[in-house]
């Protein structure tokens, strides 16, 4: 397993929104899911995850709710709000353009 890559600034928000678009989840699960879905390439530390979650909540893109988790404990579940869906669309398209542009430059020989 190669060394995990640090996330590009600003992309964590997009990943969280995308993951939460699938289903409501608590913080730990979000981290796990990002790791698994990226084939262990992307590693999200708590140092980045929780502030990001709180910021998104503050922005009104996600909302939190305390639920019983799969191992029978109380956990804070986040889910997308309406504004969150919209933000996800915006962020995703922004990312598409950005990555396409970067690829264009990187692949030029």
């Amino acid at each position, binding site marked *: 397993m190669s060394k995990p890559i640090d996330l590009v600034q600003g992309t964590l928000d997009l990943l969280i929104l995308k993951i939460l678009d699938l289903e409501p989840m*608590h913080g730990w699960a979000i981290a796990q899911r990002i790791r698994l879905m990226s084939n262990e390439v992307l590693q999200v530390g708590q140092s980045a995850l*929780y502030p990001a979650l709180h910021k998104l909540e503050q922005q009104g893109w996600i909302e939190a709710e305390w639920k019983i*988790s799969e191992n029978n404990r109380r956990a804070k579940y986040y889910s997308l709000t309406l504004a969150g869906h919209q933000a996800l669309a915006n962020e995703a398209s922004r990312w598409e353009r950005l990555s396409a542009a970067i690829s264009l430059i990187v692949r030029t020989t």
Partner: protein
Amino acid sequence: MARLFVKIHLRLRSVFQTRKVEEELDEELQYHLDRQIEEGESRGLDPEAARFAALRDMGAIAQRKDECRDARAVNWIENLRQDLRYGIRTLRKSPAFSVVAVLALALGIGANATMFSVVYGILLRPLPYADADRIASISMNYASRDNVFGTMCIRDFLMWKDSNRVFEEPSLFRSQRMDIGGTGSVPEQVQGAFVTAGFFSTLGVSPIIGRTFMTGEDKPATASLAVLSEGMWRRRFGGSARVLGQAILVNGVPATVIGVMPASFQLPRRETEVWTNLILNPPTRYGPWFYRGIARLKPGMTFEAAQAEMDSIGLQMAQQNPYYKRVTLPVLSLRDALLGTAVKPAMLVLMGAVALLLLIAVVNVANLMLARATVREREMALRLSLGAGRGRLVRQLLTESVLLAAIAGIAGLSIAWISIELIRVGNPGNLPLIDSVRLDWTALAFVGAMSTMTGILFGLAPAFAGARADLHSKIKEGGRSSSAGKGLGRARATLVVSEIAISLMLVVGAGLLVRSFVNLQRVNGGFATPPHQLLSMLISPGNRKYDNAASGLAFHDEVLRRARNTPGVELAAITDSLPPDREGNADSFQIEGQVLASGEMNPVVSAVTASSDYFSTLRIPLVRGRFFTDHDRLGAAPVAIVSEGFAQRFFPAQEALGKRIKQGGPWMEIVGIVGNVKYRGLTFNTDPVLYMPFHQEYGGRRFLVVRSAGDAQPLGETLRREIQSIDPSTTLAQIITMEQALDLSVSRPRFNTLLLSLFAAIAILLAVVGIYGLIAYWVAQRRHEIGVRMALGAAPTEVMRMVLRQGALLASTGIAIGLGGAFFLTGLLKTMLFEIGVMDVLTFAAAPLVIMLVVLFATIIPAFRATRISPMVALRCD
């Protein structure tokens, strides 16, 4: 919209339900941690290793939490709350520091708020008259007497009125004591004023009920009308509207009440209770000069233009009347006229002094904060190294100092509130316009601004010094900070030196005022009877039949007879003037055989009428000749007595006795020369005085003055009853002892002296605290060094001398600077000083001595403590 509400809700939740939010955050992070550990275990790690890995992964939990809080974007409010909480905790942790700092600032802020309210009320608050800054007071001075705001006669007024172009409608007024009587009511003597018809409209004031004077109601043959004050209306008429149209007796003449003025109207004097219409009868001669003018500038006219016109009118007056030499007609704003000449400079000096006091307080607290900053350098460095932003640290330190200032502001406000009430109610300074002094929003805003400013001011230096803290050296340095502390030490020394300098300036100022006041107290009014043994009262025979000299004299003789027979009275006399400042009359005079150039006249002198025992009652010394006797009656040969100053000035190198002089009436022979007495105030140069026998110069309203063997105060009631039983229409007023009269006459200088001394005393107190703090700190810093010295055999006296030398060094630097400042500033006191120069040597010599002693006193305790440092302890301490 809905999102906005969610946001607001979340933010409010974060701010107001901190605990819940924090708990949830804890739980959330704990959950994460647990899951991480579980996962580690499932990968085959043992529980301890899994836990360790998870924790390492998680990093500093506290930092995570802080970042989450940051993300919630409520940090500035939350930080403020934290800073406040932390600030309160810090203040409570060092109560001595907090109490001293708050007290120092509270004194400074309280004194400033008080002075500000007084100065604002007296010098700045708009007068309660429409467009008050366009109202002018016009007085008249001419060469024969040095008045500052002199008065004019009706003839002068009519001439002014005829040539007037700059004012709306010139009005004239005269203050006079009036006897108020009327059917079925107790006669009383009050302050009244004669005013021309335009007086009230010039001021733009309206009555509560009824009306004021209308145009033309000052023309000859107009009936007497009266406007009452609200106070008199409530007192004598129970506040009934039926008073309108009723007749009251004013000086025995019926006058119809036409209106009532509100209590806020206090012109021409504060205590004026009745206004009657001044009738402008065509004058047959110049004088009497009893009147002053008041007028409103026409739109577009300025005070300068008005003054220019009055100057040219003055020239005309001088041409028409050769008696008028160097006539001036000063045009003053109404406020300046009400304030007179002395109040404004004194107020400004006191305001300046109190500002210096605040400066000392601020410096002092800044000093305390710096001292603490030094102690807290390690704490700050530690916090910086743990990741606190420098901005955050500065903000926290500033929050602490502003919090301190806010507490001091509230305490200062209480001080101000109490002292303003004391000043307002007691009016110990006998200040004009005292009724506009109050603690109001302007003052509150002033205090608020001042507290915040001072808070930031004294917080700033330590805040930056603290946040600049260099991480590594400070933490390593530990307690042994003799070299690194130098920067702060120098800053503190500078602050203390400036404190000493400012204190010295205040002490010099206070010293000058005290010396001046002592001089004033020493002024001999010219009489030798102890002041508390003299009681005087103003008696007015209310009945008009006493206008006639024969019955009037009989009345006063009866007053004298009864007064003499009153138990406790040693001597009694009737007079129209009393020292120190109750001059009855002043006029020019002629000397027999003296040839004056055309238009020349002798100076105006105090002209006193007195009964035979007057001089003995007051113990005014006889220089030559004789006192008046009971034989100097109406019909006997007219006689006069002159003061020593009079004789020297007008009969130099001659014997004044036997010379004849004249003042309006017949030639009078000078039969006696008596000592000089002051009738125009203690600060005036002694005026020449001319005395005439009471029986040969009769007038209506006179003082009775009695001398008793002991305290004369208790005689007042008995005498009042006795005198009123002669004729119930008689009114008595101003029943006071000479002691009270003297007291009253110096109330303003005493007030100024008292305040400035108080400010200086507080300044010294604050400086002592500052010096003590600095020296104690200096000693603490050198514990090690001193310990070594003592271990090497230094005697305690040497150590003591070393510390005292530090104090002396600070003191002499501060004193040198302070003397320089005082040298320039005492000039401002010039008008407030009596018979003492602004460069008074004694004051300038004594003040530094006082300061030096105070500094050494503040140094002694830490110096003594330094000698007690055990060499062993010094070596042990790190």
